[in-house]
């Protein structure tokens, strides 16, 4: 019997494992699908990791390495090259690998840290031929950084998510010509620093409010048509531009990987596509916690690790009988402009000093104020921001003393101010 089984050995899994061990748990197991720990960090060979957590600029593998080093002389158990097939009743985890075959492992608590997957061509139904040469940015990144191959020479990138931007720079440095980065929205979905460092510094044009409307090429991509879109995202006839390219990279969003959670009847939030969680990262199933991109897509691995720390500590508390059960559940709601919050619920009376609320917005707000109001419209808390943008995750810390004043549920909204 394990104290905690952690599903996934990426940044969320590693950081939550460390938290569990720091809290004194003895039997902690990470189950990892790949042949080594680190998850997607291993293919992220660019820098920018660890600025918040370690106060230094690390690459993805170095960031993972920091955690792996911290876990080296602990009692942590790791199963590599092992796939979790299902989570069954009583926290039983069914796994399979080549060494031990099919096994059912029991645990007092489970932490979901499976990360996310990339949205594909199908998800956005790009018309055209089915030629080879259309990749999600992450797949291309793996071919390049792990296997040492170039997926193409002349590239158009659809979507301005961070992986797409990073790959624009990476492919350019490897000698490919990145012809354009095309974004459906009137704003970029990536971090401002990546727009600057990955596109502008290399003179790669960014076409906002544009999309790919056709892919040509019989067996391998030979070109794409890019069109401007109107306010309803419909292509504007006559605005077509043709790019002669052999490769299309897609960076059109990430989706939390929750097939296991769904099969285990864990309640999901249709907005995040991740589990609905409480402030301690517990899911709708008692003793099952979640953290990282499986809950909601983060902007930075540092933030994943911080969230994972919370999940690990909560799982340890649960195993140690310090349950966070409460009769009074406070719901966290949103107004238009704010797409979701994490957590979605708060075990209200049990909050210690304060609670963090993470959220994202779906448009650019200039000088603005984030408002937390209660059911009667009373302002509980407010936070000033110079700007709030879709590409960055926003975080507010609501003090317990403020929550105490709230009547019923609370609502998060963003308002521009003069």
């Amino acid at each position, binding site marked *: 019997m394990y104290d905690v089984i952690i599903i996934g050995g990426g940044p969320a899994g590693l950081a939550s494992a460390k938290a569990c061990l720091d809290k004194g748990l003895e039997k902690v197991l990470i189950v990892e*699908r790949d042949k080594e720990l680190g998850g997607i960090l291993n293919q992220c060979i660019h820098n920018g990791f660890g600025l918040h957590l370690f106060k230094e600029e690390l690459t993805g593998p170095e960031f993972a390495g920091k955690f792996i080093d911290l876990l080296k002389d602990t009692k942590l158990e790791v199963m590599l*090259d092992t*796939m979790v*097939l299902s989570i069954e009743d009583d926290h039983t985890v*069914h796994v*399979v*690998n*080549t*060494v*031990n*075959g*099919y096994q*059912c492992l029991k645990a007092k608590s489970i932490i979901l840290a499976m990360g996310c*997957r*990339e949205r*594909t*061509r*199908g*998800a956005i*139904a790009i*018309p*055209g*031929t*089915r*030629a*080879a*040469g259309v990749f*999600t940015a*992450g*797949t291309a990144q*793996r*071919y*390049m950084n*792990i*296997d*040492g*191959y*170039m*997926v*193409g*020479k002349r590239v158009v990138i659809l979507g301005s998510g961070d992986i797409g931007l990073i790959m624009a720079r990476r492919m350019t440095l*490897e*000698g490919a010509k990145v012809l354009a980065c095309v974004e459906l929205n009137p704003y970029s979905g990536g971090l401002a620093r990546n727009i600057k460092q990955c596109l502008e510094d290399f003179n790669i044009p960014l076409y906002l409010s544009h999309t790919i*409307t*056709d*892919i*040509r090429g*019989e*067996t*391998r991509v030979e070109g794409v048509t890019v069109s401007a879109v109107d306010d309803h995202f419909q*292509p504007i006839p006559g605005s077509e531009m043709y790019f002669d390219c*052999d*490769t299309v990279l897609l960076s059109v969003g990430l989706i939390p990987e929750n*097939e296991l959670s769904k099969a285990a009847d864990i309640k999901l939030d249709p907005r995040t596509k991740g589990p609905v969680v409480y402030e301690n990262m517990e899911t709708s199933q008692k003793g099952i916690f979640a953290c990282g991109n499986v809950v909601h897509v983060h902007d930075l691995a540092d933030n994943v690790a911080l969230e994972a720390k919370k999940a690990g500590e909560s799982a340890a508390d649960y195993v140690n009988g310090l349950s966070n059960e409460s009769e009074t559940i406070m719901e966290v709601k949103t107004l238009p402009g704010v797409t979701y919050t994490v957590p979605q619920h708060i075990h209200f009376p049990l909050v210690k000093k304060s609670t963090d609320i993470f959220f994202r917005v779906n448009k650019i707000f200039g000088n603005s104020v984030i408002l937390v109001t209660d059911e009667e419209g009373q302002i509980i808390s407010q936070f000033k921001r110079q700007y709030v943008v879709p590409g960055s995750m926003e975080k507010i810390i609501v003090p317990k003393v403020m929550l105490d004043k709230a009547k019923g549920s609370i609502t998060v909204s963003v308002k521009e101010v003069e």
Partner: protein
Amino acid sequence: MYDVIIIGAGIVGSSVAYYLSRYDLKVVLLEKDNDVSNGTTKANSAIIHAGYDPEEGTLMAKHNVRGSRLAKQLCEKLDVPYKQCGAMVLGFDEEDEKTVRMLYQRGLNNGVEGLEILNKEQILEKEPQISSEVRIALLAKTSAIVSPWEYALALAETAVRNGVELKLNNEVKAIKKTDETFLVTTDKGIYEGKYIINCAGLYADRIQEMAGEKEFEIRPSRGQYYLLDKAEGKRCTHTIFQCPSKVGKGVLVSPTVHGNLIVGPNAEESENDDTSTTMGGLAFVKAASRKSVPNVDFRENIRNFAGVRARSDRSDFILEESRSVKNLFNIAGIKSPGLSAAPSLALEAVEWLKGKGVVLTEKEHFIDERKRVRFKELSGEEKQELIRKEPAYGRVICRCETITEGEILDALKRPIPPVSIDGVKRRCNAGMGRCQGGFCSERVADILMRELHLNGLNILQDKEGSNVLLDYSKGGNSNV
């Protein structure tokens, strides 16, 4: 010298090869692509139709009804995913009502079993997601769904196991008739044979013309589809048709044998090889499907594709000896219900050969079975046992579909091994799921490199020329 040369390894050519492989004959199956079932066969609605749709007395009617019965037996014998889920043809107005009753009667005349007329309450009880505008429906209980590429592959594989020679990457360039034989020249070699069965699908008219005179013309008709995630796979449990019109059976909504939902097709004139989708075509399919099943969540789409039907200038199937060339048998213009009719059409070719005086002696050791491991369908104990014997079954490669390395290695050992990432997909389902190979294609490529001793730059997505990787990164080839 071959007794029979079959041209084209789609569902029709594979069926002919399968039936001929029972006999002591020297048979070669020529295919221009690098895999079997890689044309029209792999891109269609994947339905084995009951047979109420084709007009009485047509070849389509006769072979649809017989072919669908054969399909059921063949799929069971050769371990092909097949499910008799039944179909409904919905009627929304008075005109439709007449059509539905006409189809019912036609079905009876064609000898279709298991037909029923349903009223609105009965329809909605069986299929609550259908539009409440519905008034009447024809229920065809024998209609089925199938994995079309695995169906053709299983037939071709069994044929090869029983001695048929399969020549992939052999595009027929010329056919010369001598007194008694044919010389078929491909881009790879020359094949001499006594009889030719033309199963060349979209290219059947060209094959006929290479051998003799022009007798018919293929008029390709493209159909576009949405394939949705398993989250939508239970939207309906029957194949849901609208009333047929002049252009075809209309847009259907159906579960697939793999648990997804398929929506399509439209019908539009096209070029032979143009399997591209268009914004207009997809928009039409989406809008048309709403009439029968209004709440399909298209945000769950995982793939769009188009297939090209091998329609001809004749209204019925072409199933006859060439009028201008003796000993050449055409199975052409095989539009819908071609997938359903295929085995029956193949038997017709066998009968023709018999009529020609070809002696059909049954083989003493004909292998008429096929099995493959589907890891995720096994019980816990079976999984454990399998991994103990073959550890590679313990490594999951495709996480969306839970496909193991063992299954891929098994496919590589079979009579028709895959040569591309999509070839692996068609055999094992790896990459068919919601991430569409985002995670596993690189791992599948790795297995192909290792097992086939390929350089990464030679890894194909699908057909020849569909190379996935175009170069090494700087210093990337140092570890090769």
